[in-house]
Structures are given as C-alpha cells and as structure tokens.
C-alpha cells in the first residue's frame, strides 16, 4: 500500500510535468508559426525548403548569413523543387528554392490557398551538367543524343550506339541515372531536352543531386545529369552541343552567362507576395556581392554585376 501511494505521487508529478511541457511546446509552436519571418526584431526564423540542386548553396548562404545577421536563423531543407513549391503553396515555409519555374497551376493554387501571389527572384545560374565516369572516353554529346538516351522509346541504349568502347569492362549497356519526379532538374531536362515527352522507365532514380554524381562515379557504364556544383574528381562533365554540326561547350561560368552552353538554367527562390521584414533582408543579402560570392564558391554561376543588389 505504501508503495502504491508513492507510485501515485510520482505519477502525479510526472503528469504535471508533462502538462507543463505540453503548454510550453504549444506556446513556442504558436510563436514560431505566427512569426512567419515578418520580423520579430530579436530572433527571426526563416523557413527555407526546396531544390536539391540548391540545397548546398542554400545551406552555405544560411551559414554565411549568420555572420552578417546573428539574430536571424535560416532553417534549410532539401527534398526537391516540387517539395519546396508544394510547401510554399501550403504556406508552411517562407522561401522556396527551385531549379525550375513554378507552373501556372501551382501559382493558381498558391493564390487560392494563401491569397498571395508567388514572387520569383532569380538568385544565380546553373549549367545542367551531363556526368559520366572519369574513365569514359566520350567527351562530347549532342542534345538529341541525350534525348535518345533518356526519352521513352529512345533509340540509344548502348555505349556502342554512341561509338564508344568503354575500357576495363565488357558491359555495353548504358546505365541511366535520373532523378525522382519531384526534382526540378528532372522537369528541366524533360522540358528542354526531351521536349516534354516521358522518360524511359528503368532508370535509377536518385533522390538527390549528390547521389546522382556518386552513383555515376562508382559505375563505369553510367550516365547522369545533375547541377554543375556537384562535380567531383571521380566524374567527367561532357561538353554539350546543340546539334552535331555546332561547336561543343563546356559547362562553366563563362559559357553559362553567355548562354553558349545549351542547357543552362536559372536558379530561383519564391516567396508569397513581396518579401518583407527578415525575409526581404535575407534575399537582398543573397542578391548582394556577399551572397553571390557564396554562389560562386559552391560551384554555381553568380548573377552578373549589373543584376546584383547594391548595399
């Protein structure tokens, strides 16, 4: 009996503790939700989500920005452009990163859900690089060849179709490495290289830009596509030409800015309505020289000097 009473009192205190914690949690939760980046002067949290191509970049921005504005916490997560845009449409984040443009129906839905028009801000450029293993003798590829490799019903399935004999292996089949369907990179390739046709089934669909490059690096027969910022010494980026008779261009900063590289694209962020308060300050900083330096450091192409924000 004695033991029972003691047990109860412990339980009582545990229950009150739990209640206390619950209240505290609810309070902080409300606080964060209501804040929405609109500018709590002491401590603002900016929720940032989306493109996997841009996740390293966004993280580098967030870290660098902490030095510039210690009171602002930027929480970054990836998942794919589609994930970021879906979250923006639901109104759960402040900034969505996207390596593709928002589609008209997504903009409509965002307006319907939140009453605000999504605002697009270009924050840098990326050359969509075509990766092969570093031992692959192939150096150049045309847009049509890329399409024939990836598109449903495409005719290129073997390396010999491209006139390539791979060293140190007897396998001839091209291992296609692709991205899952919520990736902006996937949609970009489909729109600009496959002419909106569907991908061939059976590609290895990685759920990250980095994973694509890793798999290509460890697979001699693989071909993959990913942002140029993910290049490593274990892979080779192919030069791309529009048609067989055009000159081939390397994916680098100069060729991206001059639009000579045929599959360059802009990287953008989206906010709901005009950015305000802490979010505006953050985006202004991204568009400044300091923010653009980070773009360059992570391997992407910064905005030309004329397009940057003056501090």
């Amino acid at each position, binding site marked *: 009996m004695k033991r029972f009473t003691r047990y109860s009192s412990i339980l009582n205190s545990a229950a009150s503790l739990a209640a206390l914690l619950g209240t505290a949690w609810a309070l902080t939760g409300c606080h964060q939700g209501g804040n929405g980046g609109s500018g709590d002067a002491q401590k603002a949290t900016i929720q940032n989500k989306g493109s996997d191509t841009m996740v390293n970049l966004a993280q580098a921005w967030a870290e660098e920005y902490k030095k510039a504005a210690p009171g602002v916490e930027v929480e970054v997560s990836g998942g794919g452009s589609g*994930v970021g845009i879906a979250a923006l449409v639901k109104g759960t984040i402040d900034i969505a990163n996207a390596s593709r443009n928002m589609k008209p129906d997504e903009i409509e839905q965002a307006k319907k859900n939140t009453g605000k028009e999504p605002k697009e801000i270009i924050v840098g450029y990326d050359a969509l690089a075509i990766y092969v293993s570093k031992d692959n003798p192939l150096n150049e590829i045309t847009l049509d060849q890329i399409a024939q490799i990836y598109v449903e019903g495409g005719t290129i399935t073997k390396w010999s179709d491209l006139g390539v004999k791979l060293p140190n292996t007897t396998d001839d089949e091209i291992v296609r490495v692709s991205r899952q369907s919520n990736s902006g990179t996937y949609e970009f390739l489909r729109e600009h290289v496959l002419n909106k046709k569907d991908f061939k089934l059976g590609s290895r669909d990685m759920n990250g830009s980095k994973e694509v490059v890793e798999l290509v690096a460890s697979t001699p027969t693989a071909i993959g596509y990913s942002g140029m910022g993910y290049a490593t010494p274990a892979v080779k980026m192919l030069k791309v030409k529009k048609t067989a008779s055009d000159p081939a261009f390397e994916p680098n900063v100069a060729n991206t800015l001059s639009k000579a590289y045929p599959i360059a694209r802009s990287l953008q962020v989206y906010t709901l309505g005009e950015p305000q308060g802490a979010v505006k300050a953050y985006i202004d900083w991204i568009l400044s020289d300091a923010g653009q330096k980070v773009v360059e450091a992570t391997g992407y192409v910064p905005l030309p000097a004329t397009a940057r924000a003056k501090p």
Partner: protein
Amino acid sequence: MNATTKIEPATAGLRVPRSRRPAWAVFGERAFEVLIHLCGFSAIIFVLGIFFFVSKEAFPVLGKAGFHLSQFLFSDQWYPTSEVQKRYGVLAMIAGTFSVTGLAMVIAVPFGLGAAIYLSEFCGGKRRETLKIVIELLAAIPSVVWGFIGLTVMSRLIVKFTGAPVGVNVLNGGLILALMSVPIIVSIGEDALKAVPDSFREAAIALGATRWQLVWRVLLPAARNGLLAAVLLGVARGVGETMAVLMATGHAVHIPHSILDSVRTLTANIAAELGEASAGSDHYRVLFLTGVLLFALTFAVNLTADLIIRGIRKK
C-alpha cells in the same frame, strides 16, 4: 470509506485494513484500470483509424476518368507527372517489393532460426549474454544507416564480386533487409524456444535423444507457433521497410529479371513522391491507394499466418 479520516485503534479488529486506503488511492486504481483497458482497445482503434483515413484519401480516385484499377495493378507504366499521358501502374513496384522481401527472407530465415537455436540450446553463460547484447545492438541500428551502408559499402562489394554494372539492386536491398530482420527473428525465435518447458528437454534426453534429435524432433515442433511468428515479423519488417530499400535498391521502375537488377519498392515510391504531390491530386490519391495496397498485402500475410497456425493446432 468512513475510516479514511481517522485511524481506529488496533482493538477495532479485522474490519479495518481494507477500508483504510484513502479515497484517492482507490480512485487512482480505478483510473488505472480504465487506462489499461483503453490501452488494450487503442490498438483496434488505431488500426481502424489508419485504415479509414488512408482509404478516405485514396478512394476518390477510383471513379476518376483516366484511372483504371486494372491498369493500377497490372501495368508497369508509372508516369505520375507525365505531360503527355499520366499513367499509374504499380506492377513493377509490387514485383520490386516481393523480390527484395523474398530474397531477404531466403537469407534471413535460416540464419535467424539457426542463431536462435544456437543461442537457446547450444550456447551458455557468458557467451550467450554477449551474443544477445550484440544482436540487440544490431536491431538498434537505424534504417537510414543501413541504407547508407548499402549505398556505399555494399554496392561497391557487389560490383566487385558479381560484376554487376550497378551495385544498388535487388541483391543489395535483400542483403540489407536480411541483416535488419535477422535480429528480430533471433530474439523472438529464441524466446519461443525458451518457452518450451524444460521437462520436454529432460524427457528427450532421458530417452537417449542426441542434441540434434532433441532440436529437430522436440523443440522445433513444440515451438513452431512462436518461430512462425518470428519469421512473419521479419517478413513484415521487410515489406514495410522504406528508408534502407529506398537507398539500396536503385529506385528504378523495372520488373527485375535477375537479382542484379535495380528495382523500386512500393514503400520507397510513396516516401519519394508523396512530398511533392499536391494534396487532393490524382497522383496524391494514387500514392494513398498504394498505401491501401500495402495494408492489404500485410493483412493477407498476417491472415495466412494465422490460418496456418490454426491448421497446425488442429492437427
């Protein structure tokens, strides 16, 4: 209850002890009883609730134009975001789930049951304790870590030893899942063997049975229900596992022809795509329908197991 305020003298005799408990203690005990009952029923409530909500999200797609249940079940064309023609066929993923889980069980069941028999019958004292701790540690490794091992370590080994073009495939996923389900099979299997009364063992030894005869003829038949439960929990883990297979199987929509082909499983497909699908869209609903399918699959596995056990009992 009248005695709660005043302690009566000892002379009051035997009438006292029961009623001496304060009112709140009695109330507390009642409350506990109710709580425990609720815990018991909560399982049913949760299962029904989950089934209800998943179905509620999924079923509106069934009547939609452009969606056919037969295409969903028997086509391998999975184009949920196509701009030409959206097609929702999960046959390739059903094949992927079954091939990975099947391979995992082929590897895990003999190893798991063997280890369980060794632990409970052939191994004693300190060695058993150490082994048990290590096996429990194995069960505690998070699935994303397993996936990482599959993606980095295992895939290189597979490429090196099998000559497969890509290391992320059915074999990789199967091995990882086998490693994940072995600890479950071992610990539940060992409990089942331990639950066989010692009198069975004594009787068998007294009759001159060897250790092997004891295990094969006495213990395994006596513990079969528990062992079957162990195997089925392993299967359930395999069917339901997401993160590790997402990373280790290559995530390719493709009906496998050999164990060196990449596949995609039902669970991995839901995990990879649900985040982007806008709520209420056909794609979103089809993913929930995939969830209902998974639910039905595991339900079927459990039901079959139950029937088998009943069948064994009747004999």
